[in-house]
């Protein structure tokens, strides 16, 4: 069988498995099933062809499958949530599905402070309480307790600084709750993870403009996680506006 045909075949096999499964399936689980089917007595040539597949190929087939449903006008699609693939109904059919299955067993919606804190944790994990408070400008104790109780975050270690404070990270329940495939699926993930708030070339406030430009960038760089590397000024994705050359005062 040629490669393209095999790939299409693989896609349909995966599709049939998602259809028959009583739960979402990860690439690893799907790969195991393919392996097992290949080893069955009297396995077909096709079955044997999928014996030891590169997980990347399975991933690619699932992604193509998912794309198929985006273009097909149906009431459901294939989605990846927390690393596991599944068929899900589209939101516009919720009224009927709800009438049948009942309201989804979800706890009450998260408060805005909880969502903000969760966003900080999600993008900056592992993160300490002090870091969260620095970003949000308020105490986060109560919110952390709530988020932990709901299983959306957990303690993931201790920071290597004085006092060895607890660090927090998000759980897979977090991904499930928001329907995210994985953390990279967070909106604007790159931007928020890297602290891209770079001082504009022409400076913000009046007096600063008159300074011999501080090697302020250097100081800032210290805050940037080591892995990020040096921050190019030109690459600075600025939030929503042009930097100004004008002093706001005046």
């Amino acid at each position, binding site marked *: 069988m040629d490669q393209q045909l095999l790939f299409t075949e693989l896609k349909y096999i995966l599709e049939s498995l998602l259809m028959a499964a009583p739960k979402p399936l990860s690439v690893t689980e799907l790969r195991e099933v393919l392996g097992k089917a290949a080893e069955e007595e009297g396995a077909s040539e096709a079955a044997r062809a999928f014996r030891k597949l590169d997980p990347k190929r399975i991933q690619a087939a699932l992604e193509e499958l998912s794309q198929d449903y985006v273009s097909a006008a149906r009431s459901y699609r294939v989605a990846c949530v927390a690393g596991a693939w599944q068929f899900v109904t589209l939101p516009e059919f919720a009224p009927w599905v709800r009438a049948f299955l009942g309201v989804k067993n979800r706890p009450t919606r998260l408060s805005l402070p909880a969502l*903000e804190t969760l966003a900080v944790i999600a993008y900056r994990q592992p993160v300490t309480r002090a870091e969260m408070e620095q970003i949000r400008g308020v105490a986060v104790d109560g919110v952390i307790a709530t988020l932990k109780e709901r299983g959306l975050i957990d303690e993931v270690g201790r920071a290597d600084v004085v006092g060895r404070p607890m660090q927090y990270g998000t759980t897979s329940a977090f991904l499930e709750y928001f329907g995210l495939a994985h953390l990279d699926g967070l909106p604007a993930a790159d931007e928020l993870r890297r602290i891209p708030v770079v001082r504009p070339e022409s400076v913000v406030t009046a007096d600063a403009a008159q300074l011999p430009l501080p090697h302020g960038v250097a100081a800032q760089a210290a805050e940037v996680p080591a892995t990020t590397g040096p921050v190019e000024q030109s690459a600075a994705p600025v939030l929503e506006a042009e930097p100004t050359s004008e002093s706001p005062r005046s």
Partner: protein
Amino acid sequence: MSEYRVQFEVFEGPLDLLLHLVRKQEVDIYQVNLTRIAADFLAYLGQMRDLDLEVAGEFVVMAANLLYLKSRELLPVDKQVVVQESVEDGEDPRWELIRRLVEYKKFKDAAGQLQTYEEHQALVYERRAARVELPSAPARGGVEASVFDLIGAVNEILKRFKNRDNVREIEADPHTVSEKLESLRALLLERSRVGFAELFLQARSRLEVVVTFLAVLELTRLRQVRLTQGAEFGEIEITAAPALTGEPEPPPAEIVPEAPTPAPLELPLSA
């Protein structure tokens, strides 16, 4: 802090309030007039006090910070001692505040995005397939049939009688479990293997179906018969177990043969 939020939920903290004030100025964060912002911020805190709302510590700290920045700006540029410091620190306090604001705003936006996802996900239902009907597979050895397989099968058979039932059934029905039990035993001793559905072919009423079913269950319980399926969801077969054919087997089997003549089973007659 939490009591603060309860009382004044509009702003989650000083940064949130600052962002709001920046928006009111209708300028970009980078262009913000700190002097005006400081004044607005203090005015807002004053209002809170007037309303007898407790002003949280974070707000007070921020207010102090803003006042400091404002005082700096009021000085002529050449008098600003801080400039040197700022070079040394590599950090301009104004810039530092703006950087925090920009960063905070991004997380606030991200939180808003998460909220959208939250709403969306509440409306999404995942498929949880029931066990899928498999085309009969070349199963080896046969799968043991469950009670649910049985009940399912009976249910199917009962459906056939749904429309046929009529008043006549109210009259004494001749079928009893013990009678069925005996005829089943006889049948199995003779043939040693009977299809489950086959048992019901002759049934003429719902009652007879139920009675037959109970007899099968009873024989299963007594381990006098075994129920097997060639494949999952395949036809269920009843085979005689050693206990029935007289070979040595555990006690339960030995008790039943002594069964006294039983009375008819009482069933509610579906009207």
